[in-house]
């Protein structure tokens, strides 16, 4: 029978099954960071338990780390959380890329970089954006701290088999449209809870044509659509990305693995519980105007009005969102002035994101009313970008070039947007106060963020790009 990749990976990982119970699933890779792990390690200690497979764990520090001066963590509670992870990893034998390690970075950026993320694996982390790793055709999902402790202790999780959902993007992406615009368009079309109880597989021509880094951007925000996981079937793009990375086999052994990976792809004729199709032509550069990721539109459009909604609860939600965002109904999106630009996060801080943004920035100057920062996703990304001179492009334009970490995506470190100020951000959440108490977030792609930094307001990046001449 034809199967989806979701069903194939699930079946391969069942340790125990019994009717009326969730399945006991084996976990191949457990990623950890400093915020959601301390209580889990403490639980192990209190019960005299060990980490069953430290060799299948990998930890890093990302949420709390400073992006200016690595040697000083001013906040004593942040410092303690960082120190606690170091001590826990030492005590339980868990490999760690600590704050001064050359591999340190945002956990969802370094997993793929190091070749730890591979097709067919079950991957968990105490972080909802674990869905990122689904880009490789892995079953990757975020878990809470109790589940972190459960995986540390048993290398398994009890999970009820989810429903499957296909989101197909047909056709070719238009000029100036990026992966971030695809996922924002999906969420705005179907809502922030469309994926609840489902795992999404992204399919179709537009997805096939994306690079691995672009696929990561899309899978990363599956959780913003309510799905715990989102994935893309592995293909030659996946195999090419992994060839030669640390932690993947070499030579003939790699080719054998690659064959196994490719066989995981969803079979022709397999069916999903739910299927949606979007045409790539219909997607334009996107911005959010509200307080959840579904509240967004193409840049040429306006903030909606109450008249656009049939249901009272939707009108209430619009009113609450606009009150927080200090926006008027019907305002043109391109008129919204911003004071901050953040290019970073597990969604959009990889080398290709920085390259794309730098193309827009090159030879231009950040608007005087704007503070703009670039926070590379990992030390590896940072080194590679500097080797290409991208840091100089950003610095010359007036951006700050920072150390790596989660930074202004959630402002757990010192990088916060002040109350009452607005940020064009390449991150994933525009919730109230996400980037700092009272701050207002507009989610955009890296190129849109770059253009906003130059103009001082949200703007259509296509005005900054040369449209390629169609081939005859």
């Amino acid at each position: 029978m034809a199967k989806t990749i979701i069903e194939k990976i699930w079946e391969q990982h069942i340790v125990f099954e019994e009717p009326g119970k969730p399945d006991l699933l084996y976990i191949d890779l457990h990623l950890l960071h400093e915020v959601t792990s301390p209580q889990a390690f403490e639980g192990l200690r209190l019960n005299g338990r060990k980490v069953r497979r430290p060799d299948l764990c990998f930890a890093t520090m990302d949420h709390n780390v400073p992006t200016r001066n690595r040697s000083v963590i001013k906040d004593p509670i942040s410092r303690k959380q960082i120190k606690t992870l170091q001590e826990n990893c030492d005590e339980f034998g868990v490999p760690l890329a600590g704050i001064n390690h050359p591999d340190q970075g945002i956990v969802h950026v370094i997993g793929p970089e190091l070749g730890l993320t591979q097709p067919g694996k079950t991957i968990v982390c105490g972080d909802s954006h674990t869905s990122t790793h689904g880009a490789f055709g892995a079953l990757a999902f975020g878990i809470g701290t109790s589940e972190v402790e459960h995986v540390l202790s048993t290398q398994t999780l009890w999970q009820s088999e989810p429903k499957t959902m296909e989101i197909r993007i047909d056709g070719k992406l238009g000029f100036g449209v990026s992966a971030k615009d695809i996922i924002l368009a999906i969420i705005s079309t179907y809502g922030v809870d469309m994926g609840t109880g489902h795992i999404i597989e992204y399919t179709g021509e537009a997805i096939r044509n994306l690079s691995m880094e672009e696929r990561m951007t899309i899978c990363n925000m599956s959780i913003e659509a309510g799905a715990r996981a989102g994935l893309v079937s592995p293909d030659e793009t996946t195999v090419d990305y992994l060839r030669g990375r640390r932690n993947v086999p070499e030579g003939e052994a790699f080719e054998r693995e690659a064959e196994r990976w490719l066989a995981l792809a969803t079979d022709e004729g397999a069916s999903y519980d739910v299927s949606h199709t979007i045409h790539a032509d219909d997607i334009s550069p996107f911005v959010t105007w509200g307080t959840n990721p579904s509240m967004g539109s193409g840049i040429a459009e306006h903030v909606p009005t109450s008249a656009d909604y049939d249901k009272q609860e939707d009108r209430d939600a619009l009113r609450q969102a606009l009150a927080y965002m200090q926006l008027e109904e019907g305002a043109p999106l391109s008129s919204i002035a911003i004071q901050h630009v953040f290019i970073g996060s597990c969604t959009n801080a990889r080398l290709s994101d920085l390259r794309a943004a730098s193309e827009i920035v090159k030879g231009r100057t950040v608007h005087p009313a704007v503070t703009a920062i670039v926070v590379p996703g990992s030390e590896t990304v940072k080194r590679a970008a500097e080797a290409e001179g991208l840091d100089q492009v950003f610095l010359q334009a007036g951006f700050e070039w920072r150390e790596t970490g989660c930074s202004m995506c959630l402002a757990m470190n010192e990088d916060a947007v002040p109350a009452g100020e607005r940020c064009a951000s390449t991150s994933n959440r525009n919730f109230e106060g996400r980037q700092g108490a009272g701050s207002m977030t507009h989610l955009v792609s890296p190129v849109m963020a770059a253009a906003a930094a130059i103009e001082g307001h949200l703007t259509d990046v296509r005005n900054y790009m040369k449209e390629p001449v169609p081939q005859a």
Partner: protein
Amino acid sequence: MKPINEISSVLTPLDRKNVDTDQIISKEFLKRIERTGFGKYLFYHWRFKADGTPNPEFVLNDTRFQNSEILVAQENFGCGSSREHAPWAILDYGFRVVIAPSYADIFYNNCVKNGILPIRLQEAEVTALLEKGKQARYRLDVDLRQQSVTGEDGASYSFDIDPYWKEMLLNGWDEISLTIQYDSYIQAYEEKTQQAQ
């Protein structure tokens, strides 16, 4: 965790949909390395004004709902981050039951692993509860074993829950202790996959 079966309490109506975990517990309070002490930060930026004084508009500051153990909200409650600090804050504040039409998956799991009962009712039923709860103090009897919610006016609703989670909640079991009983299966799985490589 503490077992849960019958809870009788006034409900607290939080009439919003898509309440995200950033609102339930804001990031500045995630730095603690303990599981307790988060209750005073629950819904912090809705509960308190920028100067730190209580916001009288917010439902948790309404004296009618003091000591309530049942929180009622609209759909997709707990969306966003996987932070278990969200249910820890809800529990530490004093809520044992949440009622909503739907929940984000990770948040739901995090609740049942901490002895919080997340009840799913129909949207119209939740709307009715919110309306009654906003008009006056409205008492509910929640019975997990019977899977029922009964209002003081006799209005009664039934809810579904996975039998596995129901058993865990009723008994307050520690899931890891249970899973350790399956160790032979885990070992067998590891041996099998080792050989395959």
